[in-house]
């Protein structure tokens, strides 16, 4: 008999599951064989039971809704401001000379370094969190919008000149569409960053509800099952937002004839 196992495309697709399943199996063994007496090692079943309790509770859904609302509010405020600022920086040399250096310095400040200032200005509530999230979403949008508008191919701008486009027609008809892939990269990053920042904000500006607070609850009460469940949820939400952004990005790339990454 041949020792070579033919790998079908189907089985190849499931290869990515091997590691997580093995990890869960070892985890299950560890908790059932009593390899550790620590109360912090909870069994997979315990996590599953907690997960079920959470999913069927109102509290959990309120937390998720609070986090998502916060995330999307921050995302929309940050990207809106980011688009305006990015367009101004990318389109006006004058504005760029005036504001560009300050912005470039500003973006070097680590996001989390803003937390003390934000908590002093806005407290620990939703306003502070959304302000922090907006900041997280703002920077990548500004940078990519501005870069996209600056790197419009000069060849295409010449076409606009040949056909007598006004400044406004050039911006709307050539520069913005040419910059769109780059602008989209900014929005995509903003979506990813703002979810990361949502958890960060909930963790560091502790008050109110949110999936980050569920995480803190679990850790404060040594409920590792709750911590693990919250981590899985955070990962799944992040994954979903990422997947959503990728679908939009692919559609746009197809329209532009760019091969998907």
């Amino acid at each position, binding site marked *: 008999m041949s020792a070579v196992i033919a790998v079908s495309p189907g089985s190849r697709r499931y290869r990515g599951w091997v590691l997580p399943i093995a990890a869960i199996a070892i985890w299950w063994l560890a908790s059932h064989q009593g390899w550790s007496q620590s109360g912090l090692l909870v069994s997979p079943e315990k996590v599953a039971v907690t997960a079920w309790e959470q999913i069927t509770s109102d509290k959990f859904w309120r937390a998720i809704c609070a986090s998502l609302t916060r995330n999307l509010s921050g995302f929309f405020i940050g990207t809106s401001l980011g688009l305006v600022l990015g367009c101004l920086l990318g389109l006006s040399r004058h504005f760029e000379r005036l504001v560009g250096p300050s912005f470039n310095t500003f973006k070097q400040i680590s996001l989390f370094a803003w937390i003390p200032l934000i908590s002093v200005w806005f407290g620990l509530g939703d306003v502070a969190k959304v302000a922090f999230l907006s900041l997280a979403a703002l920077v990548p949008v500004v940078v990519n919008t501005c870069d996209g508008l600056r790197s419009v191919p000069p*060849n295409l701008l*010449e076409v606009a000149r040949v056909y*007598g486009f006004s400044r406004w027609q050039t911006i709307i008809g050539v520069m913005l*569409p040419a910059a769109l892939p780059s602008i989209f990269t900014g929005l995509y990053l903003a979506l990813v960053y703002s979810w990361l920042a949502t958890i960060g904000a909930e963790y560091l500006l502790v008050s109110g509800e949110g999936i980050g607070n569920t995480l803190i609850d679990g850790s404060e009460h040594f409920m590792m099952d709750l911590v693990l469940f919250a981590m899985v949820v955070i990962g799944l939400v992040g994954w979903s937002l990422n997947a959503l952004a990728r679908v939009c990005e692919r559609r746009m790339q197809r329209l532009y004839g760019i091969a998907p990454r």
Partner: protein
Amino acid sequence: MLNNGLTLENISKRFASRPGSTTQLQVLDNIQLDIAPGEFISIVGASGCGKSTLLRLILGLDEEYDGRILINGKPIAGTGLERGIVFQDHRLFPWLNVEQNVAVGLKNSALSSAEKRDTVREHIELVGLQDFIDAYPHQISGGMAQRVAIARGLVNRPSVLLLDEPLGALDALTRARLQGELQNIWAKEKITMILVTHDVDEAVFLGDRVVVMQPNPGRIRRILDVDLPRPRNRSDSRFIALRDDVLSDFAELH
């Protein structure tokens, strides 16, 4: 001197050899050329002879030069819809389909939207792309993209169409076919065409006159009349003689 058509009067152009440097590079030196309305002019020359620069000046993309460029007796100022262009790279907007790309040419025309639509359709048919009206640039071949660019260049019904090595990037077969099509379009539209090329065969095949340029500084070496009936036959002995005559200029230069 002709008072309609296109006149180039003592055109000279210098570039700073390096940005900020005072030493200047003479790119064009005293170019004189009268082009009759409806004439097909081919400009050939080795790279660096300033032929594409000359086209940019006529197009109005570059306004820093000495001398005068007159269309119908009036000096040009900047770009204008009476001068169309087909670049070597098609320069279509990737986010617009074929129809919308051709319509870019009419963005600032005075036509009504119904007239624009008809004119666009008409020109797409002229270049034979009526089945690809909804296709995006990345979905069509290089030759087809160049036809779209030709349609876009013609859609304003310019009095002069400038062609900057429009077929230079295409394969030999597509190129020969498009040369034939270009000649038919020229005969049909009866407009002035100025073709810049480094392909002597193409220059003789299409031109009423062939302007041979030479570099350092860029200037006209001589102008040949191509007195052959159209469509021209590349294996005709007179065609071959003319082509070899032009080629001999290049042999001397190298």
